[in-house]
Structures are given as C-alpha cells and as structure tokens.
C-alpha cells in the first residue's frame, strides 16, 4: 500500500495495521525516517517537504513493483508525508513482509535507497541561520547504485 499525505501518521499503529494484512508472513522489516532537530551545530525548527503530486505516487508504485520482481514478498507499505513537519515527526515509513527475513530486509532497504534518489520530494529546513533547501547526498546516490542491474 502506498500513501502520500500531509497529515501526521502513527508509525506503531501503521505497522500493526500492515501486519494485520500479512498474518502468514514469517517476518516484517520496517524503517521509519524522522525529522532531526539538529543539522551540524545548527538547530532545525521545522522541515517543509515539497512534492510533485501524481509523480510521487507513480514513482512509489514503480518502486514497489520493482521490489516485488526482485524478492518473494507478501506485502509492501510506503507512507510518505509532505507539508510542514516538526522534529521528531516521522517523515516516511516503509515496511516489507516476507516468508524469509532476508527478503524483507533487502526489500525494505532497497525501497529506502531508491526513494531517496527517485521519489520527487524536496526538503527545506528552517534553521537558526535561516531557511535552506537540503542538498542531495552523494552517499544516497552510491547506495541506490548498489541495486542497479
């Protein structure tokens, strides 16, 4: 399931709801990314996530389809917020259910790596020193490249 939403979400409640859909899976791997309240020595007061409606959902659908072709999965979940967030609100939740934990872990990490480099979202941080768009990370590019085939 894929959800792109402005409203906050409750990671624990979402994990439980997802698990209720995959009672036959041996393992469920998940990841939550949350807003940090610092950036180096500066303070992060808020984060605004801009996104490209339509394309965001489309990219997530393509990513989950790709993941299903790579691993034996019983279910996938992506929830991603946009709009204004405050530390330490969750930004993203990804979960993967599978018979074997190796598949669940790999799919979960794959989804995070690829959504970091493909999902059309842009973060702007409100710092003590002013507002600034977050620069893309070369490390994220390198991690995403691991999955190219």
């Amino acid at each position, binding site marked *: 399931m894929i959800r792109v939403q402005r409203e906050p979400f409750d990671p624990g409640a979402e994990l439980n709801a997802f698990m209720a859909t995959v009672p036959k899976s041996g393992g469920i791997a998940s990841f939550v*990314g949350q807003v940090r309240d610092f950036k180096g020595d500066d303070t992060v007061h808020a984060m605004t996530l801009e996104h490209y409606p339509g394309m965001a959902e489309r990219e997530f659908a393509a990513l989950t389809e790709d993941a299903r072709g790579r691993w034996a999965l019983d279910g996938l979940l992506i929830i*991603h917020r946009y709009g204004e967030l405050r530390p330490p609100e969750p930004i993203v939740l990804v979960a993967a259910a599978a018979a074997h934990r190796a598949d669940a872990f790999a799919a979960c990490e794959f989804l*995070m790596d690829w*959504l970091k480099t493909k*999902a*059309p979202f*842009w*973060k702007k941080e409100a710092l003590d020193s002013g507002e600034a*768009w977050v620069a893309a990370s070369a490390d994220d590019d390198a991690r995403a490249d691991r999955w190219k085939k």
Partner: protein
Amino acid sequence: MSLTVLYFAWVKDKIGRGEETLSLPASITTVSGLMDWLATLSPGHAAAFSDRRMIKAAVDQQHVDHGTALNGAREVAFFPPVTGG
C-alpha cells in the same frame, strides 16, 4: 504546441512560480532545447537554469535525461536532485 511546465524547490523559488503554460516554438524538440529557451524568458528563469548539472527533469511524470525528445509531452517538470525519505 502548448505545454505545462512545472518547477519545484529552489528552481521554483528562482523562477517565482511553480507552474506555467507555454506555447512552444516548433524548433524545440528536446528537454535540453526547452531549457535553453526557458532560460531566455526572464532573469529568474536564467538564474534557475544557469547550472544545468543541478537540474533534473521529468517528462509526463517520468525521470528523463536532458537529451530526451519531447515528442507529444504534455507536462515537463524541472527540479533539483530529490531529497525525500
């Protein structure tokens, strides 16, 4: 040819708007050619497209390279490298 062009993040900030509908000269056939032409529209456009290495593009909501042909595109978007997740 009428085209919807979308801008996001600091590309939008520099251009001063997030969306515009433009009538494209017939000579413009690629994403790269579109950027050349957009850069002539205003100082904001020129600033946004001054370093093409910082600009990513999507044609009809699919990531594309700058060399991609526009043929038949209805919607083109320009934005910095994404930073979601």
